[in-house]
């Protein structure tokens, strides 16, 4: 009976794992950027990766997101994933509402409008991204990511180049949305306070080639 319970617990733990990253190496030309990286993130868990500039944090995210496929290793994650990029990466020739509907064709106009309202952009549904401030564009990018209630959320320095006040409000909004949707979240930041506020686990990517280690305060 004890063995059965242990097996059930192990199966349950396995099902909870949303992302399993097992990178052996990643090269740019002849330069090895990433070394061996093993990372598991469970449902509802938020993992922050910090580290010096140029160490390979964004490269790691691009590998996990499936954008960069030229690496040695394996990544498994759920189908439903969304990403908040370092730049908002919106379609400048489509309205705010269309930016959500194009990314999520099954969303429906009403749900998309609700999502815009959720991030304070209800009045801007017909505006083109170029008519929005940087803060509004980043909120639209957040709305696009959360609109599909993703199982896996990836964020690449989502608050960079915002003034402290705006970054603080964005952080509040992101924290609320993560709490509501509870995706497995992997995000990269330069800011330890940001990382510690949002994440359950903070990891440091460092070295040449870069490898993951515990955050320095752990």
């Amino acid at each position, binding site marked *: 009976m004890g063995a059965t319970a242990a097996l059930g617990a192990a199966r349950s733990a396995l099902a909870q794992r949303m992302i399993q990253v097992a990178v052996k190496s990643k090269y740019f030309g002849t330069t090895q950027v990433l070394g061996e990286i093993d990372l598991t993130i469970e449902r509802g868990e938020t993992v922050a990766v910090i580290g010096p500039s140029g160490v390979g944090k964004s490269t790691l995210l691009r590998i996990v997101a499936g954008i960069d496929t030229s690496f040695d290793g394996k990544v498994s994650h759920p189908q439903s*994933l969304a*990403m908040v*990029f370092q730049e908002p*990466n919106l*379609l400048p020739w*489509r309205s705010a509402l269309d930016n959500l509907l*194009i*990314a999520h064709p099954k969303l429906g106009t009403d749900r998309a409008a609700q999502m815009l309202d959720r991030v304070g952009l209800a009045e801007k549904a017909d505006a*083109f991204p170029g008519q929005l401030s940087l803060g509004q564009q980043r909120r639209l990018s957040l709305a*696009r990511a959360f609109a599909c209630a993703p199982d896996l959320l990836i964020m690449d320095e989502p608050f960079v180049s915002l003034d402290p006040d705006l970054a603080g409000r964005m952080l509040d909004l992101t924290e609320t949305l993560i709490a509501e949707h509870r995706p497995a979240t992997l995000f990269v930041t330069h800011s330890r306070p940001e990382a510690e506020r949002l994440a359950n686990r903070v990891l440091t990517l460092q070295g040449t080639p870069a490898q993951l280690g515990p955050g320095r305060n752990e």
Partner: protein
Amino acid sequence: MNSPRLIPFLSISGFFALWSFAAALSADPEILPAPWLLITPLVREMASGELLYHLSATLWRVVWAFVLAMTLGAALGMVMGRSERVNRWLDPWLVIFLNLPALVLIVLCYLWIGLTETAAILAVTLNKIPNVATTLREGARALDPNLDAFAKVYRLSWSARMRHVVLPQLAPFIAAAARSGVAVIWKIVLVVEFLGRSSGVGFQIHLYFQLFDVTMVLVYSLSFIVVMLAVEWVLLQPWERRVRRWRNA
């Protein structure tokens, strides 16, 4: 004096004034008739249906060659712009065809295929494809990799990716290729008609060239210029304004 409508009107008026002055200087309507001397033959040709018949024959060839050249040239340019390997293979071909005189392709098509409609349209299309491909190759090279990443992460379908991500980025390049395409294609169509067709503005110009009738050469040439200006103002410019709407918002 900065009115967007007044300035083009004054500019065109200046052109006709200069033409009238040159006609007065030559003092020989058989060499250079004044603009108003074209009105009577123009009305006569319109009334007989000859003008409409030849204009529509030329326009039909222009449309066919334009659609084929834009479609094939754009596809080729996009593939070459996205794949450096394909580009390395096809770039020498592009250079050869870019430098091949239009007349050579026209004559070869007529020799190989015969004096047929297919040969005429093929000759014009082959002349224009390299220009379209070159322009669209630059467009494909300038595609934003960040938007590619967005399309990949959010798993956009091929059609959605083309419609919402790729084509809007290529729109300025497509517009440039279309504008220069229309201008070049109709001129080549005239040469094709001049050499080997029995209808069209080029054929009529050939006929009146042999009769040394400058007035009729000008009637047919200017009529088709008006048609092409109408295409520019009615189709191309409104389309361009529409796809650039977001830039001016």
